[in-house]
Every structure is written in structure tokens, then in C-alpha cells.
């Protein structure tokens, strides 16, 4: 790329005074040499044709080494005049006696001019080829860089890097944010102190006007940047400012900048489309989940509601006919089903809070002991049929958590243990510290969970391979919710076989150190 850049800059040398004198001096030198050769040839008695050839060669060389075709034209003419002056009778005058001489002059001029024109054309063609190759190379590199870039900022950075490399000027990029522009990203040219004027509020305002297409750069000479849109069709993704440094941009530079910006806009467009697609996919997935949730809830609500309303209506209509024990059973059923609904509502609240993302979690440092105690006060009263053992530790186990949600995790795990083990089973709750994590285990000595189901139990709406799901009152929501909650805390949850062959659910939370405040 370095070589290409150099060549490119050489080609771009414009028609300045210095280069004009240099080219002119070179041309005069070559003409003098041609005349010298001509004089030698004529002295040696060579024919005029040889001398003419020398002049044509001279003009050809001039056309090659000078930068403008005007030289070919001027020196074609001059060569004819000099030839006339030195080599046609009468010598050292601009008069020609021979009738054929004007024809000779004309032919000489035409052939000198046409060969030199061809040479110039060839040269220009070669230069265009080089530019095209260079441009293709740059665009190819840009394309590759953009392909690797992920996210808007990365795309802007890749574009700016290429522009800086190409132009050796400071670049400022403003990405669009709704109808405004984000804070400018500045990419200074190597070895260049980035001037603050580039991103002065004045310039930022100009960039914004440019985005809204109310800014006309031609009428504003005070601008330190030249602005280009990064846009597809009529939509702009942002604005690029190129520091002018008192040099304007050449046509070729301008065209290549536009091509690069085109690539950039394409990349931004793709990125935008990909993001929208992803969002749509997430939304679709959420909707799917919500639909599943609603279906599961309405199904699971029906059973306890049937029992509650049915039992209550029985008690209302012929409560007097039931004996005390039957009545008591009906009351208990109503109470149990209502309590089940209460638990369901708590879980649903937790689900919505988790779904709304981390923003809604209230983290604070809590003592694991206290959290476990709190959970036990909420555990279903069925626990009377099971033995709950809490292993106390003397260590203070502190963890950062949303206490309400972790209490919900514990309630779900303990309720699950109660639900899926036979009466009389023992459930052991323990917590300990392992390196930087607090581990909490809820182990039972029930039938355990088969190895191939250990992963599945955490899936949503999984409720075991129980054919009579209605009698179990399980939404299959509890464990998947536990998993989401623990994951949101940066912990993990799994199930393993407990020493006495039951299931042992373990979850971890990051441990917290506290510096005591005296």
C-alpha cells in the first residue's frame, strides 16, 4: 500500500508554477539536444529525414517526461520552427524556398504531435490503471476490515482507519442517533496532534446541519472540515468530517472517499438489519414463551380453582349435611389449593421481574442464614409430613443477591423436594463457602432423579415423566425459574445424587466480603 500511495501522490502533482518551470526547462534541454544531434547529422551529410526523426523522438521524450499534453503540442510546433530555422534553405531564417517544405513541416508537426499524443494517452491510461488497481486494493482492504467489524463503533473505526491511511488527514466521525448525532469519534493522522477545533461545538453543529441537509459547504469557507454523508439512498447513518488542513481534496481522493463511505454505509445497513432481525427473533421467542406460559397457567389454574369453587359451593348449599370430619377435609382442600395459587402468583411475579432484565433486581448483601430462615417461613405447610434439617455453620456467609428472588429459589427447591419425595423423607438444607462462592444445597433421601433427566428438569414446563400431571399441581416453572434467577446472579445450579441416593440440588452465588464499619 505504501508504494501505491507514493505513486498516487506523484501522479496527482498539479499544474503548479514550480513544476511548470521544471517541465519547461526539461523540454528546452531536450529540444537543444535534438538540435545538436540534427546539426551533427547535417554536418555528416545525413538526409533531412534523419533530422526530422530526431525531432520527433525529442517531442516523444518530452511528452513522456512532462506532466501535461500542452508541452507535446507546443514543442511539436517549436520543433518544426527550429527545423525550419536550422536545416531548410535558406538556413538561419524562418523562410522556406522549396515548394515541398510546407508539406514537410506539416507532416513533421502532425507526426510529432500524434506520436506524443499517443504516448501521453498511454501514460494517462497507465496512471488510471494504477489508480484503479490502488482503489480496488483499498476498497478490498476496507471491505475486509468492515467484514470483521462488529457493531457500529467498530465499523466507524475501520472506515476511519482506512481514510486516515489513504489521506493522511484527521478524520472525525459522527454516528447518527435518532435525529441527532452521537459524540464525535476522532481519528488523528499519524504523528498529528489532533486539534480541538475539529470537534468544536461549531463544527458539531455544522455536522448536524449537514445530516439534516441544511448545510451548504460551498457557502461556508470557515469550516475546518469537509463533510460527507455516510448514507444509502436517502438515509444517512452519520457524517464524516475530513480535516482540510488548507489543502482541498483531489478528484481521485474524493471519488475514493465516496466509495469507502459507500462501503461503510453498506456495512452499517447490514449491521442494522442484522440487529433488527435479532431483536425480532428475541421478541418472537419471548412471545412464544409467553404464549406457552399463559397456556400452562390457564391449564394449571383450572384444577385448583375447580376444587376451591366446588368445595365452597358444596359447603354453602349443604354444609349442614356433612359431618365434622368431611367438612374439615373440604376446608383443608380449599386452603391447600388457595395456598398453591399463592405460590404460583409469587413465581409469576418473579418470572416477570427476571424477564424485565437486570434493571429490576435489587441487589444487596445478605446473610445466607437469614435468607434460608425467611424461606422456611414460606414453605408449604406440607413440610409437617417431611423432616427438614438445617445444618448450621458458625461462619458468616454473605452473598450479594436480590433476597426476594433467592428466597423464591429456596422455596421452590424445598417445595419440590417435599412434593417429589414420599412422606417421612428427610430434607437437608446446608450452606457453606467454597473459594469465592457460597454453595447452598437442598438434599433429600427420596427416589432421586435419573441421570438422563438431570439436565431436563431445569427446562421450562418440564414436570417430570408423570402421566397424571393434574394431581401434582406442577407448572414445571419452578426449576427453570430457579435457574434463570441463579444465572442472573452470576451463579450456577445443578442437581446431583445425594449421598443417601436422593436428589441434591446445589446452587452457587458469588461470595461477598464486608469491611466492617466501626
Amino acid at each position: 500500500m505504501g508504494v501505491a500511495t507514493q505513486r498516487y501522490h506523484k501522479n496527482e502533482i498539479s499544474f503548479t508554477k514550480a513544476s511548470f518551470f521544471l517541465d519547461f526547462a526539461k523540454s528546452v534541454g531536450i529540444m537543444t539536444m535534438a538540435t545538436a544531434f540534427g546539426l551533427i547529422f547535417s554536418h555528416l551529410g545525413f538526409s533531412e529525414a534523419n533530422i526530422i526523426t530526431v525531432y520527433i523522438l525529442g517531442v516523444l521524450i518530452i511528452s513522456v517526461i512532462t506532466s501535461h499534453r500542452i508541452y507535446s503540442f507546443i514543442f511539436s510546433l517549436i520543433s518544426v520552427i527550429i527545423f525550419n530555422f536550422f536545416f531548410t534553405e535558406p538556413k538561419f531564417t524562418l523562410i522556406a524556398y522549396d515548394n515541398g517544405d510546407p508539406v514537410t513541416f506539416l507532416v513533421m508537426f502532425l507526426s510529432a504531435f500524434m506520436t506524443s499524443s499517443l504516448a501521453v494517452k498511454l501514460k494517462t491510461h497507465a496512471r488510471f490503471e494504477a489508480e484503479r488497481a490502488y482503489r480496488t486494493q483499498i476498497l478490498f482492504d476496507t471491505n475486509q476490515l468492515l467484514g470483521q467489524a462488529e457493531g457500529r463503533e467498530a465499523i466507524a473505526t475501520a472506515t476511519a482507519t482506512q481514510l486516515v491511511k489513504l489521506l493522511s488527514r484527521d478524520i472525525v466521525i459522527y454516528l447518527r442517533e435518532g435525529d441527532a448525532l452521537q459524540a464525535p469519534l476522532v481519528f488523528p493522522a499519524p504523528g498529528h496532534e489532533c486539534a480541538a477545533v475539529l470537534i468544536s461545538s461549531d463544527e458539531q453543529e455544522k455536522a448536524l446541519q449537514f445530516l439534516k441537509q441544511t448545510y451548504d459547504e460551498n457557502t461556508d469557507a470557515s469550516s475546518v472540515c469537509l463533510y460527507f454523508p455516510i448514507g444509502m439512498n436517502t438515509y444517512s447513518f452519520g457524517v464524516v468530517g475530513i480535516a482540510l488542513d488548507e489543502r482541498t481534496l483531489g478528484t481521485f481522493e474524493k471519488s475514493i472517499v465516496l466509495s469507502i463511505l459507500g462501503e461503510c454505509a453498506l456495512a452499517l445497513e447490514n449491521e442494522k438489519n442484522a440487529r433488527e432481525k435479532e431483536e425480532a427473533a428475541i421478541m418472537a421467542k419471548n412471545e412464544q414463551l409467553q404464549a406457552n406460559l399463559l397456556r400452562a397457567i390457564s391449564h394449571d389454574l383450572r384444577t385448583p380453582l375447580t376444587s376451591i369453587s366446588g368445595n365452597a359451593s358444596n359447603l354453602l348449599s349443604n354444609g349442614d349435611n356433612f359431618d365434622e370430619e368431611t367438612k374439615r377435609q373440604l376446608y383443608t382442600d380449599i386452603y391447600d389449593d388457595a395456598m398453591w395459587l399463592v405460590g404460583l402468583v409469587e413465581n409469576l411475579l418473579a418470572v416477570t421481574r427476571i424477564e424485565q432484565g437486570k434493571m429490576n433486581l435489587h441487589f444487596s448483601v445478605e446473610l445466607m442464614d437469614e435468607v434460608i430462615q425467611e424461606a422456611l417461613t414460606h414453605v408449604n405447610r406440607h413440610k409437617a409430613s417431611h423432616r427438614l434439617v438445617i445444618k448450621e455453620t458458625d461462619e458468616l456467609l454473605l452473598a450479594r443477591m436480590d433476597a426476594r428472588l433467592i428466597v423464591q429459589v429456596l422455596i421452590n427447591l424445598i417445595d419440590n423436594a417435599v412434593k417429589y419425595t414420599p412422606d417421612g423423607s428427610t430434607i437437608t438444607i446446608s450452606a457453606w463457602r467454597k473459594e469465592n462462592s457460597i454453595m447452598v444445597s437442598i438434599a433429600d433421601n427420596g427416589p432421586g432423579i435419573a441421570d438422563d433427566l438431570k439436565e431436563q428438569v431445569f427446562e421450562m414446563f418440564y414436570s417430570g415423566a408423570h402421566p397424571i400431571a393434574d394431581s401434582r399441581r406442577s407448572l414445571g416453572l419452578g426449576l427453570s425459574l430457579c435457574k434463570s434467577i441463579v444465572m442472573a446472579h452470576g451463579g450456577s445450579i445443578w442437581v446431583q445424587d445425594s449421598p443417601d441416593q436422593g436428589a441434591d440440588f446445589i446452587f452457587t452465588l458469588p461470595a461477598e466480603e464486608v469491611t466492617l464499619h466501626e
Partner: protein
Amino acid sequence: MNKLLILVVEDDLPVRNLMTTTLKAHDYRFLTAQNGQTAILEASSHNPDLVLLDLGLPDMDGVEVIKKIRSWSNMPIIVISARSEDNDKIEALDAGADDYLTKPFSVEELLARIRVTQRRLAMMQSGQPASAVFTNGNLRIDFAAGCAYIHEGELHLTPIEYKLLCLLAQNIGKVLTHTYITQHIWGTSWENDIASLRVYMATLRKKIEKDEAGKQYIQTHIGVGYRMLKVE
């Protein structure tokens, strides 16, 4: 026969029926109010011993009712809230409520809270708080000497633990929010204070309740605060 007069402020009829039925069954006297305005009127004209206040009222926010009542009276207020967000409870407690219950609550829980308040009232009427010695079950604090005893054995407390114990004892039966406690102990309520508070509370509890065979003096309200319970 319970002589306690309880004002029930609840706009939902079935829940109000549930509460009044429960109170009737346990021989409490009660008044009812369906909205905030009536509640304030009833509270000022009948001067009840206790207010059970639902936070979600049709005409005004329950917290406003607490502030109004607190402007002239220290009558105990138990807040009943269907909102499970801790912030609502904390706001109500900081506005001057003594305790809270979250819907759905069990009848036993409601009665237990009323009993706690009843004991606290009895204690306030006997003029105890002004005295130099505080006793609660086997716990005794001698404010003048700056010492605390359990089973007549002296408790070895750090200055902060002693301060915490005194604060809880002076507000026995009342739920104190984390912010309230840290403000009183450290004068600030940064997150680190709350974390420290957990640790001090845990060690304080261990020291007091070590030999007390399941008796609970300090109750933790996760996400809300702490309360000293009256022990018989």
C-alpha cells in the same frame, strides 16, 4: 375479653369481611373505613388503639394517611399491602408505620401481629421506656450502667452491638428499616453500612439467643429491616 379498639381501613369488601370476622371471633372491638378520608376522620374521632391500614386506597395513598395520623397521634399502625415490592413497605415504615403484612396473609399472622402490638401498648402504658432498666424475657439492659445481661450473665458486646441492642429495645415490637438503623448508628446509610449491619446483627443475635433454646428476640425482615420481639 380484648378491650382493644381496632380501626380496619380496607376498600375491598371480602378482605374487610375476612378481617372483621377474624377480629370478632377473637373478641376485638373494631371500626371500619373504606377510604383514606373516612379513615382519618374515624381515627381522630374514636382514637382507636390500633389501625390496620391497606396501602392501596381508592382516594389517597396509604402513606399519606400514615403521615396525617402521625401528625397528631402515635397510635400503632400496621400496614397491609398487596404490593410485594419492598420499597412500598419501607416507605410506609419510614413514614411512621409500626409493622406490615403482605397480602395474601394468613389469619394467624394477622392475629400474631395484633398481639405483638398489644404487648407493646401494654408496655408503653406501664411507663417502662422511661426507666433506666429494660427487661424483655431473660434479656435485661441497664442503660445507666451501659450493660446488657441475659440470664443475669453479662453480655460481652462491642460498642456498635450495644448501640444496636438499645435502639431495638427502645423500639420494641416495631419494625425498624435498614435506613433508620444505619442513620441512627452511623449517621449515614451507604450500602457498606447495610452490609456491616447484617454482620453486627448476626453476631448480636448469636450472643443473645445462644442459650435461649429457640426463643427469638430479634426478628429479621429480609429486604426491610429488623425488629425486637417481646418475649414472655
